[in-house]
């Protein structure tokens, strides 16, 4: 690569580097093996030449003096910051020996494999874990409360996930002839800045606003969207599910829903027994009837008709199923029972939330809810974009299924400008998100049995191939039903970012015999490992991505010292752990995964990116009508009934509430008035900074300059009551602990809430314990609990805790 000429390389961003969920096109200017500059690729349909601050700061990142540049093993005690340089050969041998010993003595499930958010390495961590034989791949947040729960919840009722439509499916984007700009967009708990969450380019929304899209912003903070919204609904954190019930109440009361969709594409007409409150099944009607088939009342023949789930149709195609009413049905036992429809049940649930009630719970004026819901329902088309706020509450499924019902009932599902099914381009799956299965699997289903939480929580069992994080942490201490002996942590920050109650994680790590950390820089987490491996950035690897569209390659344009790309590290070890590992080279594996696209890795790399053709299952629109979603090619959805399930059949089977509703989270002034006396403020966290990806980039000078300190946003009146001035250091404290932040007095937060920045540690501070890069000073997670996750093992109260604030005393601040 040594040349004196500057060469320009096209590639795609994903993880190490900007850190994000990636997908945009960039041009890397390289000279003599050094990165000179990075620019947005004007030809790339996703970003069209634009680029975020973090990617533009790459020259300060790639060549940063603190980069990990060679493998090292611990030379002192854990946390002493004493390291000995070793070769890759030594590192692989050491890891192989240690992990094989654990596998032999305790079983493969005794190793946990931890990954961070939306990383390019999920596929390759699974590859390594599965080759080793462990099903325990862990996303370290309590209740896995980011994105995965949303996907699993949506999969339960509509089969496939769906996202707002900004014409991202087509290379010509907004010029695509079938595309329509949404008239209205709900932005639910998401702030723009420079985030491109979940493979959606955040600023597509500003593109749409310029084209006329009007915004309904749901956010307690005055965000950029909030300022520009037609309606800004500033709800109390944690009451989102009450708000969605209010929206549904308006669209049902005002009859603003799509009756044709309700009758034809939902299970609204299916009967529910009044005696058991369960769905009436064919097996109730006829002695050998299928329990997977359901029953409706036909108004033409005045009799029952069977919904044949395998055929995705009623047995009598001429029947007219009733979506409302009570009917008496004779069971095969001769018993006569009264039934009502699932739609009536749904409406009854929604009727529990008149707008006055919703106003009382959420704090949002009833009139604003009514106007917003009406505007959304009447707008054609209308879309919803949601942020991680919806996952960060224990009752995530009742909330998410409510929002899904909103877009479905208003006829906005898989239409131009609505919420469009998002499938992996060409159905090439490397990163198997909840709801999808990829070719990277455990060898046998039996091997998945010990996955922590999978037997207890059915959404994890059926959709979400991770272990339950809170249970995993507890199991490290209890060693029941089996001991956890080691952890593989790859570009993830269990100490400084993902881990709530980090003190508990700190003691958990001490219980482990062996910890490997793979990362780009040392962090509080890597400091506690036994072996640290240096990962390459996105510019140092060949890879590909198929997270929605397009299908595209990430291209190796440089090498930095001994750093190796994550997937090359994992590939080498996978071969060592699995004698049957069937691939010689990483490229053989890539070609295998890419098969459904009809391209090899090299062929795709030459193209750069490829969009699935129209008429294929990964290209919109109206796919449920065209039979493009289900493996059997029948029209319908990939759900057990083949219908959009307003009343979830799976959740009924799992003994979980089958319909949306509100549950008050565990730590709010409403659920815990006792705590509110001492901790009167709502503590929220997680607002995004354009400078950082979660815990990263505090060591990049251009970025740190934008956002130098851990900020606590306080309303000026609240600050005055607490005698706090702008820029002063303050303590946030609750029953779990305290941490200090720099006060920013700003009316963007309501008087009753403070917003603490997340992910703070100080790369410039001392690495060795007890400092651990100052990670205990300003880590808000110290006030957020583990083990408060939802009934289905997912979701957790991360954005709504409680606290008090007070000024730091002189001498308590070591930042300045």
């Amino acid at each position, binding site marked *: 690569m040594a040349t004196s000429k500057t060469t320009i390389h096209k590639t795609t961003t994903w993880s190490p580097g900007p850190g994000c969920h990636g997908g945009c096109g960039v041009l890397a200017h390289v000279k003599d093996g050094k990165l000179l*500059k*990075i*620019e*947005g690729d*004007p030809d790339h349909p996703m970003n069209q*030449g*634009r*680029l*975020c*601050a973090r990617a*533009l*700061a790459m*020259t300060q990142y790639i060549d940063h003096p603190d980069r990990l540049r060679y493998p090292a093993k611990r030379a002192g005690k854990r946390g002493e910051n004493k390291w000995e340089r070793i070769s890759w050969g030594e590192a692989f041998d050491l890891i192989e020996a240690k992990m094989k010993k654990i596998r032999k003595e305790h079983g493969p499930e005794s190793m946990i494999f931890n990954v961070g958010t939306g990383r390019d390495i999920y596929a390759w961590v699974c590859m390594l874990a599965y080759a080793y034989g462990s099903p325990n791949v862990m996303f370290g947040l309590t209740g896995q409360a980011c994105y995965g729960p949303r996907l699993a919840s949506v999969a339960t009722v509509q089969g496939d996930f769906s996202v707002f439509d900004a014409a991202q499916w087509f290379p010509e984007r907004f010029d695509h002839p079938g595309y329509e700009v949404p008239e209205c967009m709900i932005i639910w708990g998401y702030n*723009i*800045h*420079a985030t491109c969450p979940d493979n959606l380019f*955040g*600023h597509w929304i*500003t*593109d749409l*606003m*310029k084209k006329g899209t009007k915004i309904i912003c749901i956010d307690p903070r*005055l*965000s*950029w969207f*909030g*300022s*520009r919204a037609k309606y800004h609904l500033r709800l109390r954190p944690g009451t989102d599910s009450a708000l969605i019930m209010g929206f549904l109440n308006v669209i049902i009361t005002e009859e603003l829903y799509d009756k044709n969709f309700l009758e034809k594409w939902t299970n609204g007409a299916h009967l529910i027994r009044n005696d058991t409150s369960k769905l009436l099944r064919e097996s109730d009607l006829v002695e050998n009837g299928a329990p997977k088939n359901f029953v409706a009342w036909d108004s033409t023949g005045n009799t029952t008709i069977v919904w044949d789930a395998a055929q995705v149709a009623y047995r009598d195609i001429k029947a007219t199923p009733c979506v409302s009413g009570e009917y008496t049905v004779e069971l095969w036992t001769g018993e006569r029972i009264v039934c009502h429809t699932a739609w009536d049940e749904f409406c009854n649930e929604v009727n529990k939330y008149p707008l006055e009630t919703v106003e009382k719970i959420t704090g949002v004026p009833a009139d604003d809810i009514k106007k917003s819901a009406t505007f959304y329902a009447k707008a054609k088309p209308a879309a919803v974009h949601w942020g991680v706020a919806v996952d960060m509450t224990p009752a995530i499924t009742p909330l998410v299924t409510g929002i899904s019902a909103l877009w479905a009932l208003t006829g906005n599902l898989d239409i131009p400008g609505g919420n469009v099914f998002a499938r992996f381009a060409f159905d090439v799956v490397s990163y198997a998100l909840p709801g999808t299965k990829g070719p990277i699997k455990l060898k046998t289903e039996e091997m998945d049995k010990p996955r922590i939480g999978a037997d207890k929580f059915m959404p994890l069992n059926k959709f979400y191939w991770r272990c339950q994080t809170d249970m995993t942490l507890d199991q490290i201490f209890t060693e029941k039903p089996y001991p956890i002996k080691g952890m593989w942590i790859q570009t993830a920050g269990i100490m400084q970012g993902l881990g709530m109650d980090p003190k508990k994680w700190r003691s958990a790590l001490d219980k482990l015999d062996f910890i490997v950390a793979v990362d780009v820089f040392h962090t509080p987490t890597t400091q506690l490992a036994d072996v640290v491996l240096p990962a390459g950035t996105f510019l140092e690897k060949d890879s590909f991505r198929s997270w929605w569209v397009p299908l595209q390659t990430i291209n190796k344009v440089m090498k930095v010292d001994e750093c190796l790309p994550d997937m090359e590290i994992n590939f080498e070890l996978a071969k060592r752990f699995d004698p049957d590992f069937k691939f010689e080279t990483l490229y053989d594996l890539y070609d295998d995964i890419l098969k459904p696209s009809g391209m090899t890795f090299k062929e795709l790399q030459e193209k750069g990116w490829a969009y699935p053709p129209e008429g294929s299952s990964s290209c919109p629109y109206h796919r449920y009508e065209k039979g493009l979603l289900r493996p059997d090619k029948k029209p319908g959805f990939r759900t057990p009934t083949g219908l959009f399930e307003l009343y979830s059949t799976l959740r009924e089977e799992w003994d979980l509430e089958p319909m949306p509703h509100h549950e008050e989270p565990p730590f709010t002034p409403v659920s815990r008035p006792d705590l509110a006396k001492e901790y009167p403020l709502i503590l929220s966290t997680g607002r995004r900074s*354009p*400078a950082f990806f979660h815990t990263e980039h505090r060591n990049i*000078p*251009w*970025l*740190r*300059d*934008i956002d130098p300190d851990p900020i606590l946003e306080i309303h000026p009146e609240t600050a005055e009551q607490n005698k706090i001035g702008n820029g002063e250091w303050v303590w946030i404290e609750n029953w779990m602990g305290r941490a200090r932040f720099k006060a920013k007095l*700003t*009316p*963007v937060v309501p008087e009753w809430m403070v917003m603490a920045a997340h992910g703070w540690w100080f790369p410039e501070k001392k690495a060795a314990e007890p400092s651990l890069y100052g990670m205990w000073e300003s880590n808000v997670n110290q006030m957020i609990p583990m083990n408060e996750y939802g009934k289905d093992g997912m979701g957790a109260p991360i954005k709504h805790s409680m606290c008090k604030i007070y000024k730091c005393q002189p001498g308590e601040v070591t930042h300045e």
Partner: protein
Amino acid sequence: MSKKHEYGLLIDYEYCTGCYSCQVACAQEYNWPAGMGGIRVNEIIQKLPKGKHYLTYLPFPTELCVLCKPRTKKGLPPACVKHCMSGCMTYGAVEDLAKEMTKKPRMVLWVPK
């Protein structure tokens, strides 16, 4: 108008999201140390009646902005303009940009050099 101050930057601050791309793009292009650079982004919170507020971001060109002469000479857009995530910055002749300003409100025209 004097020949010397012919070009400017038009900012549509209705759409500036405070993404800071302009600030870092300039720092990268001219290798400014942190804290310096051709453009700084500001947050402005306006108090409105009925307890409401409005949040605006506004990029402000500093003494160090050279209007990307080395780039524009080659026909390239300024680094900040090229990377603006919102596409809310335009570089051009002051007269043309002034005309653009008549088409929509919430615009500001900077002539830094």
